[in-house]
């Protein structure tokens, strides 16, 4: 006996209105989890029917049950779970044939199916009439007309689910006229299938045999017994030698049947989408289309860059006030430091991403549900194809200019895992906004007052960084595609759904769900890393330093100074002490230890400590340097910090920061993965630690080699 609550799946084609229907039925009470082993969201909700509670599970949108990867296998696995008692198959009435192709497969599998015929409003507008009763009797499954967006037909649907959950309910699969040769193939597969799934009914076994014939071969499915694979391979070879194509036989027989059913139930006035057609004439127009495309992309970019900023500033200042409060309220000591610099700072580090994530997902949700995202991919695919990326990779890449964290999350719109990974692993090379303060500090330090022709040297250096970042990102994608993530040629088969006005509630719900998942999953990792980093930069504390500064402090207090002068002297003493303690900490010692490796790229140990601190977030480089140089709090415009950097000398007396080492440092920051939040979010989105570690390694090696090339090359050319 299975004691789990009975499960009702909601399946359907992408864009059939599945999510809308799911939310309408569940009233927004959904929980988002993960399917085991793959990084696909499993959205589910508890539903209270008269017959008792059931769990409603939103299966990822699909055109078919056929699978060749573990991600695609989800739908079948969900179907096979013992407690799956019924499937609601959402069919978009305006793309009836394709929807029925999926419904037919579900019905063939023997599970009780309820067809929710959605978008009836749009169908009516198109003058399409569907005789749901006749359709229902031909399919052998109840058909309920609904309009998910207007919540029409939901009660009838709920009642039908209850009726279907009664123990005696079973679908009666219709007889599809599969050709004789194919029936013989199925018969040969059946014994192995029955051994694999001993409890399957005759219908289920037959449906499963068909599924195997479509799915096996060139697949990386898990859990298929060798015996089944062998027979399937035999059948394939035999069919090939006879000049038959079983794939074609199965699919054609199904579509023939669907065509026939549609002919008998649907008064089809030439289906067309006059509205979408007109809109597309503009939106995919060679000139206007590209112009609008550019405008929309610029809008997203602007929103992420500028729109999110006030909120991020607010979160940052809130964090700072909380820290001040804690400092005032708690006795000085390690515990207070842990709370202030570890925990509160860590929570701040997580929350600061919230505005950009919400904004980006509201945008993407709007683009996706309105149908424009498919056009974005359509317009730009030609460009992305060149480096082995999918057209849908464009929006995530562009978002990478603002911040890699929401951008990595945005790769969800890309269906195929390999395409998604390539995008996810290349986009952290886009020059994000956190790199800007670092560039500005360096440019202000080494290029002040210099010019290149008509332009200031700083502006040229900054601009070059952005150009370089785009080139390197695209180059990395191309290389990844040909090496680590080599695989079958990526294709571009994309439905262009009709334009629809998205529902604001659903956009909010989805963006909010995304944010919550980030806060919980990636957030914990970021918080933990912040605490570790704080510890590395704070311990061990040197008694010797403490004593020396105590003595100094006492000396100042002895002196006969004005109150203001004394305060000033104490403050600068405190900053100097923080710097001395940092040098003694693990992080400081590590900075010293790696100095031999940093010298060839033009850095010294102080920069090294800054780089370690910058792992929290790149812009922290600036404030860490402030502490290292004993200046105290500093931002990128801070004059004393710039001066201190200019005055810094290597052991041999040569200056550390020259234009050449400055460029080397900028290149390093451009290419290195100095961002634990990116690591955390890639961990979350790729499903394992393997990919973030790979990302960190390849970016660090790349950054080092590039800086080496810049610095040593520059010296050979006599530039530094």
């Amino acid at each position, binding site marked *: 006996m299975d004691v789990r609550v009975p499960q009702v799946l909601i399946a359907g084609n992408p864009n059939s209105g599945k999510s809308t229907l799911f939310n309408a039925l569940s009233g927004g009470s959904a929980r988002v989890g993960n399917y085991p082993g793959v990084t696909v969201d499993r959205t589910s909700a508890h539903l209270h029917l008269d017959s008792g509670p059931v769990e409603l599970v939103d299966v990822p949108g699909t*055109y*078919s049950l*056929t699978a*060749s990867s573990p991600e695609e296998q989800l739908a079948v696995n969900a179907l096979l779970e013992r407690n799956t008692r019924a499937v609601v198959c959402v069919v978009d009435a*305006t*793309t*009836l*044939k*394709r929807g029925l*192709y999926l419904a037919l497969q579900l019905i063939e599998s023997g599970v009780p199916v309820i067809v929710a015929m959605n978008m009836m409003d749009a169908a009516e507008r198109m003058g399409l009439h569907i005789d749901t009763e006749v359709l229902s009797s031909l399919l052998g499954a109840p058909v309920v007309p609904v309009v998910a967006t207007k919540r029409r037909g939901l009660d009838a649907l709920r009642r039908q689910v209850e009726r279907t959950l009664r123990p005696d309910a079973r679908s009666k699969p219709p007889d599809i006229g599969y050709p004789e040769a194919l029936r013989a193939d199925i018969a040969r597969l059946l014994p192995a299938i029955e051994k694999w799934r001993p409890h399957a009914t005759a219908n289920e076994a037959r449906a499963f045999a068909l599924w195997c014939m*479509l799915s096996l*071969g*060139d697949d990386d499915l898990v859990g298929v017994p060798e015996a089944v694979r062998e027979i399937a391979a035999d059948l394939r070879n035999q069919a090939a030698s006879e000049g038959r194509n079983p*794939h*074609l036989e199965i*699919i*054609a027989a199904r*579509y023939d049947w669907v065509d026939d059913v549609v002919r008998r139930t649907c008064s089809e006035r030439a*289906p067309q*989408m006059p509205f*979408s*057609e007109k809109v*597309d004439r503009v939106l*995919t*127009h*060679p*000139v206007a*289309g*590209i112009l609008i495309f550019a405008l929309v992309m610029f809008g997203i970019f602007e929103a992420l860059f500028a729109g999110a900023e006030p909120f991020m500033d607010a979160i940052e200042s809130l964090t700072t006030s909380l820290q001040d409060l804690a400092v005032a309220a708690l006795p000085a000591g390690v515990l207070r430091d842990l709370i202030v610099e570890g925990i509160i700072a860590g929570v701040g580090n997580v929350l600061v991403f919230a505005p950009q994530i919400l904004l980006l997902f509201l945008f993407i949700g709007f683009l996706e549900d309105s149908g424009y995202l*498919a056009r974005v991919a*359509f*317009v730009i*695919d*030609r*460009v992305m*194809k060149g480096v082995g990326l999918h*057209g849908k990779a464009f929006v995530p890449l562009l978002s990478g200019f603002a911040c890699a964290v929401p951008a990595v999350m945005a790769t969800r719109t890309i269906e195929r895992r390999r395409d998604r990974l390539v995008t996810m692993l290349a986009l952290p090379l886009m020059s994000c906004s956190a790199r800007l303060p670092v560039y500005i500090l360096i440019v202000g330090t080494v290029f002040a007052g210099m010019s290149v022709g008509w332009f200031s040297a700083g502006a040229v250096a900054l601009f070059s960084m952005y150009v370089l970042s785009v080139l390197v990102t695209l180059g990395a994608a191309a290389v990844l595609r040909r090496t680590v993530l080599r695989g*079958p*040629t990526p*294709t*571009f*088969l*994309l*439905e*262009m*759904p*009709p334009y629809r006005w998205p529902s604001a509630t659903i956009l909010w719900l989805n963006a909010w769900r995304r944010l919550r998942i980030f806060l919980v999953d990636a957030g914990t990792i970021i918080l933990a890393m912040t605490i570790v980093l704080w510890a590395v930069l704070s311990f061990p504390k040197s008694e010797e330093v403490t004593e020396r500064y105590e003595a100094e402090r006492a000396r100042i207090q002895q002196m006969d100074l004005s109150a203001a002068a004394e305060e000033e002297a104490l403050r600068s003493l405190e900053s100097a002490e923080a710097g001395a303690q940092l040098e003694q900490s693990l992080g400081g010692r590590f900075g010293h230890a790696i100095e031999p490796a940093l010298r060839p790229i033009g850095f010294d140990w102080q920069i090294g400590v800054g780089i370690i601190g910058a792992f929290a977030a790149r812009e922290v480089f600036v404030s860490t340097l402030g502490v290292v140089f004993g200046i105290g709090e500093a931002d990128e415009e801070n004059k004393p910090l710039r001066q201190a950097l200019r005055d810094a000398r290597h052991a041999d007396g040569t200056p550390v920061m020259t234009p050449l080492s400055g460029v080397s440092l900028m290149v390093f920051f451009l290419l290195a993965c100095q961002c634990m939040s990116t690591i955390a979010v890639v961990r979350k989105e790729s499903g394992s630690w393997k990919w973030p570690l790979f990302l960190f390694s390849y970016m660090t090696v790349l950054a080092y080699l590039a800086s080496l090339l810049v610095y040593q090359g520059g010296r050979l050319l006599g530039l530094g």
Partner: protein
Amino acid sequence: MTPSLADLRPGQTGEIVSIDCDRPIARRLMEMGLLPGTEVRVIRLAPLGDPLELRVRGYALSVRRAEAARIAIRARGM
């Protein structure tokens, strides 16, 4: 030489004769409803010339030229 889907200009219609893509891609195309005998119309090309937007079985689908070139058709209404 038999014409392919990639030879059609926007507005032209053809009937699929055979699909000669790699097996997994051919299977996906067929499951999306592109089968021998199916009528396909090219609606437009993307602004940069690739991919193509098709109308098939009452919905719009875009495919790259590389795939379209391996779908043999019998042209109609040319």
